[in-house]
């Protein structure tokens, strides 16, 4: 068929659909009635979701978790460098950042519907898209932390050179900065969406993810044997802030937060919050002086932190499926 005859055929087909629809359908009041819709909620369309639930797979919450640890490890390493925190610790922090930076893109790429097109993420630079910013932040972080690790390893092997030291500082400082962004932007990514339980917690989420990130970085250090006062202080700080967040969530019972309290997401978030917050805090108070105790606390915090990322994604799914909560929220504003 030539394009012209093909077009004629398709247009005739649309004509045919229109005619047959007009012939077979009749005005409403001539049709036989159906049963009254008892399951219909008047405040929504049969209670069906008005939003689409997130399509993200298991890789994404794991990425949030690892990205947070990697970013905050690099940041911790740089601050340790500033305060002469010991080269073994700095080296470990930088390597944690680098390993994280290597794993994160793999997780993100395997979540894509078209993994071969992952480089399309770098076609544009869009300040108004947290996903675009995240892609660039991850690329920047990976490069900075790689530079820092290379410089550090060369210096360790005796290549003393003022330029190298300068590059190390540059790499570390920029890795710290982009690391903070990497740990924090995920909260913005989730918060700046149409999903009510996420957008209504858009100021809480970055704070929570960052806290989870630096607490996780400190916990990894403790598990690696850095049972120093600094990791102890950071452990106390992280679980203390997480306890405050947990109290806030429990006290502030808004209808939009229902997925944070009920169902699978609610249960998971409660367990996660208790592990990261009060459990980790109390365990550290009572067993923080004991090396084994500190390992246990660190593990408890990490488990809570990981579970929390999953719980927030599950909460988003539940929130998207609740048209009533969405409409109620929009009526208030």
């Amino acid at each position: 068929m030539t394009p012209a005859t093909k077009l004629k055929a398709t247009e005739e087909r649309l004509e045919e659909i229109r005619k047959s629809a007009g012939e077979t359908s009749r005005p409403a009041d001539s049709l036989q009635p159906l049963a009254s819709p008892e399951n219909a909620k008047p405040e929504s369309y049969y209670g069906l979701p008005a939003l689409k639930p997130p399509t993200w797979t298991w890789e994404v919450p794991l990425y949030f978790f690892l990205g947070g640890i990697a970013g905050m490890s690099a940041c911790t390493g740089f601050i340790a460098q500033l305060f002469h925190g010991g080269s073994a610790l700095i080296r470990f922090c930088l390597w944690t950042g680098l390993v994280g930076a290597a794993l994160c893109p793999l997780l993100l790429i395997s979540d894509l519907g078209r993994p071969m097109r992952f480089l399309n993420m770098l076609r544009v630079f869009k300040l108004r898209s947290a996903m675009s910013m995240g892609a660039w932040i991850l690329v920047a972080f990976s490069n900075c932390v790689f530079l820092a690790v290379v410089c550090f390893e060369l210096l360790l092997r005796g290549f003393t050179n003022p330029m190298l030291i300068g590059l190390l500082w540059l790499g570390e400082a920029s890795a710290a900065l982009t690391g903070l962004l990497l740990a924090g932007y995920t909260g913005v990514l989730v918060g700046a969406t149409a999903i009510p339980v996420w957008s209504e917690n858009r100021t809480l989420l970055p704070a929570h993810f960052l806290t989870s990130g630096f607490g996780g970085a400190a916990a990894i250090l403790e598990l690696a044997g850095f049972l120093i006062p600094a990791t102890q202080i950071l452990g106390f700080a992280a679980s203390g802030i997480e306890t405050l967040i947990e109290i806030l969530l429990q006290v502030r019972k808004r209808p939009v937060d229902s997925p944070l309290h009920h169902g699978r997401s609610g249960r998971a978030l409660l367990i996660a919050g208790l592990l990261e917050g009060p459990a980790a805090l109390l365990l550290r108070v009572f067993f923080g002086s004991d090396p084994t105790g500190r390992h246990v606390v660190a593990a408890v915090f990490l488990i809570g932190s990981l579970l929390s990322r999953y719980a927030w994604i599950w909460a988003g799914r539940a929130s998207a499926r609740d048209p009533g909560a969405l409409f109620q929220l929009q009526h208030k504003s």
Partner: protein
Amino acid sequence: MAVSAFLTDATLCIGCKACEVACKEWNEVPEDGLVLSGFSYDNTKALGASTWRHVMFLEQPEVAGPQMADTEDPFRWVFLSDVCKHCANAGCLEACPTGAIVRTEVASVFVQPDVCNGCGYCVVSCPFGVIDKRPEDGRAFKCTFCYDRQKAGLIPACAKACPTQSIRFGDLEELHERGERRVQELRDRGYDDARIYDPRETSVGGIHAFFVILGEPEAYNLPPAPDVPTVYLKSAWTSALVSAAVIVVLICIAFAFQSGGTF
């Protein structure tokens, strides 16, 4: 710039689903299951990656309108063909990190299938729950506003196939006027709850596929006051930066009393 628009009128729709069929055929959209929902004659249920027109069947308690009177519980039967709204400020377009979603020369919102990498961020950024990822394909899909047909000077397939002109296609300004006139006409005829659904007062800034409906928008799962999610960016980033600053201070304090030597 000429702005293409749809005016979809619930009071003219007869629920024939010709628009659904025409859309699927013209755009070669895959079938997405044959399941009886039990919700009146609506077995499509919602817009999605493979449903770009969706005819709703509302059964409302007795109010002015096309009545199902000879039944135990009389109700008004209302139909509406839902579609992508082609927002003036589109959440999906703002969120897309690849630039796959673009604004076309007719001001519609178009997903370039050769660019989309299926990240899924548009899915959670649409305040109307329209765009979705097609699992077997991996990319996100939604109504194209028959961009290909418009380029060839043809009207979208759904509008062409509509037997009652419930779906009107044309210039946005003209259709705005037509919509206003239609609502006035309906009100004069006693349809007191006839109204236009077009959230122009919100951050979405109006939609290019707007509706004449009877009753509250929520009954059609149309959000009463949708927001484009970019309005949340400022407070979220502020929180991130403030938290980051506090945490940097905390880490500094933690290491201030630590001394182990370095380069």
